[in-house]
């Protein structure tokens, strides 16, 4: 809200609200501004759902990612239906009847209206270990009469819906872990650069310029190809995130440095210093608040880049390796155009990737507007 609007607001609305506006803290103002950005709120909600999936895929999916149903290889997505024999009933799916196309010798799946599979909540099915620790076999939904595959199956007859949910865990957390790493690197190096200035600043700035001028994907590929083949899933996972942050920290370091240089000279810092505030109080009470909002915006916009990087590397077979699943590894199945044309549902992970990145961009946009609530 602009200054001008604020003034007119005082005249037209009851004094109470204007009063609230003037006494609100900076964070309250940011929150109000954020809430008004509709796309950003949608982004935040969708991402909350995605991360919830990533936290509990074991419980939320009807199967486990390694479970194979051989006879359902490449079966198309099952539709959730509510009408059977002209009568409305609870949600259910039909099983598949198989036949062979005489011309192309291809397996054809047709809905078998006699094989009715009602979808129930809290079904006992494949056993899993929640976060690899807590054993369980209760799934949020499923059918006790056979597999339910809402997004179809891959070449081994594994449920793509389940695999997409498990992949969300890896793909979404790579972004978070990578951003934390670049955050630390960017904060430390950008901080040093901005605080000391001079020679140190010069060297760090040249390094950043150098890293930015490199084409990232070939460099990532080169580094990822160097990850030892004997490494386990978790080591590879961290290896990939470290590689992604090696390039990713540069942008953040620039923001930190720029802000530090700007704030160091700001009047309110000078005022605090003259008033006799201690160094720690200046940093924690004055610098951090005017700083954090920008950092949060920048971090939010850095996460989708990490997610895209991981997807690209895994898609090429250089990142996360099977049996671990990420959206990128799932998309490896979609590399062959013939396969994609015949079985378009193999592209479903792409929708999740695009949705996640889009929502992060919306969220970041809203946060950017909110970060400067006085504008």
């Amino acid at each position, binding site marked *: 809200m602009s200054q001008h609007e604020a003034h007119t607001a005082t005249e037209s609305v009851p004094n109470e609200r204007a009063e609230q506006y003037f006494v609100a803290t900076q964070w309250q103002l940011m929150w109000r501004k954020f809430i008004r950005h509709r796309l950003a709120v949608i982004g935040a909600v969708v991402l909350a759902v995605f991360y919830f999936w990533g936290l509990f895929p074991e419980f939320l999916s009807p199967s486990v990612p390694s479970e194979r149903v051989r006879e359902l290889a490449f079966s198309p997505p099952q539709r959730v239906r509510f009408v059977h024999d002209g009568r409305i009933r609870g949600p259910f799916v039909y099983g598949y009847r198989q036949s062979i196309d005489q011309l192309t010798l291809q397996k054809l799946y047709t809905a078998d209206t006699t094989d009715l599979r009602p979808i129930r909540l809290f079904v006992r099915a494949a056993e899993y270990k929640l976060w690899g620790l807590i054993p369980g076999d209760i799934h949020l939904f499923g059918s006790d009469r056979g597999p339910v595959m809402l997004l179809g199956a891959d070449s081994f007859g594994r449920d793509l819906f389940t695999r997409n949910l498990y992949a969300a865990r890896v793909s979404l957390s790579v972004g978070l872990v990578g951003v934390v790493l670049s955050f630390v690197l960017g904060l430390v190096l950008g901080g040093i650069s901005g605080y000391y200035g001079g020679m140190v600043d010069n060297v760090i700035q040249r390094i950043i310029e150098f890293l930015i001028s*490199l084409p990232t994907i070939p460099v990532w590929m*080169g580094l990822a*190809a160097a990850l030892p083949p004997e490494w386990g899933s978790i080591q590879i996972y961290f290896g990939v995130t470290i590689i992604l942050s090696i390039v990713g920290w540069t942008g953040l370091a620039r923001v930190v440095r720029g802000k530090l240089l700007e704030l160091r000279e700001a009047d309110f810092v000078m005022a605090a210093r003259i008033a006799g505030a201690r160094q720690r109080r200046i940093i924690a009470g004055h610098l951090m608040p005017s700083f954090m909002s920008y950092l949060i915006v920048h971090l939010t916009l850095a996460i989708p880049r990490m997610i895209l990087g991981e997807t*690209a590397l895994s898609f090429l077979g250089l990142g996360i390796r099977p049996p671990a699943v990420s959206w990128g590894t799932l998309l490896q199945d979609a590399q062959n155009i013939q396969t994609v044309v015949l079985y378009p549902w193999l592209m479903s992970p792409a929708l999740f990737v*695009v949705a996640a990145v889009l929502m992060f961009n919306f969220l970041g946009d809203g946060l950017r507007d909110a970060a400067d609530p006085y504008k």
Partner: protein
Amino acid sequence: MLAYILRRMGVMVVVLAAVSVCAFVIIQLPPGDYLDDYIAGLQARGTEVDQAEVEALRHQYGLDRPLYLQYLRWIGKIVRGDMGYSFVYARPVEALLKERLPLTVTISVLTLLFVYAVAVPIGIYSATHQYSFADYGFTVFGFVGLATPNFLLALVMMMLFFYLFGLNIGGLFSMEYVGAPWSFGKLLDLLAHLPVPIVVLGTAGTAGLIRVLRGSLLDELSKQYVITARAKGLDEQRLLFKYPVRVAVNPMLSTVGWLLPEIVSGETIVAIVLGLPTIGPLVFNSLLSQDMLLAGSTIMLLSFLTVVGTLISDLLLVMVDPRIRFEALQS
């Protein structure tokens, strides 16, 4: 001006030296070297491997020397134009690069031109018609374009073309022209194949640039000189193109600095998906098979392309924009 150019060239040489060290480190990172793989392959096929012969080979390729000597030897040869031999393709690296480099450069430059040709008019329109229906449309396009990784876009395009026209749009040449010498027919064939990779590669950059231009033009439009010009009765069209557009377009040239690395980088992976005969697939295959000399040269060359491209764009910017020229010559 000359001093500025020379200084920038000097900086570029330093950057390229750093790039070469990086490329060398990357190719040294995987455990073992190509000979290890080669020997393992021979042993797997049951061939006896003589230890003395292995040592001789290792010595011949200089693999038994300390790393910095290996680096100096490698870079010394590259400077003299000898990039070594690719084990995987069984051909000299220069020959491979000579074949693929022109296509890589062509695609990158055309993509860059495509991005500007599309982004500038749309950006101007969006800014002058702020909050109009089309502006919202372009904003949505911008968000989706930035969120879609280009290799996915490549897959989707291939899928669409296959569904709609039954065409396979992979590659840069039709079957009959792949090995053929250059001719008018081959050129036409190439032109027919170019649009898809260019659109795929350019989408993200276009989306980003529209937002940049829209933002900076909106800033300019609200400045006082625009109001003054309007008050003096200057025709809206002439006013727009005479002042604010010129001011807003100039900084866009400096976007080449991040746009070009992005295009070259994206080209690597899109080329693998679309099967383009450019340098990208070379990087990929050489890394997978630890073909070190090829991997090093290709990574080096791609970085070289972006660094030189950025330098050219910076020099152009200095020539076009007096304010930047002033700043550059001052420092």
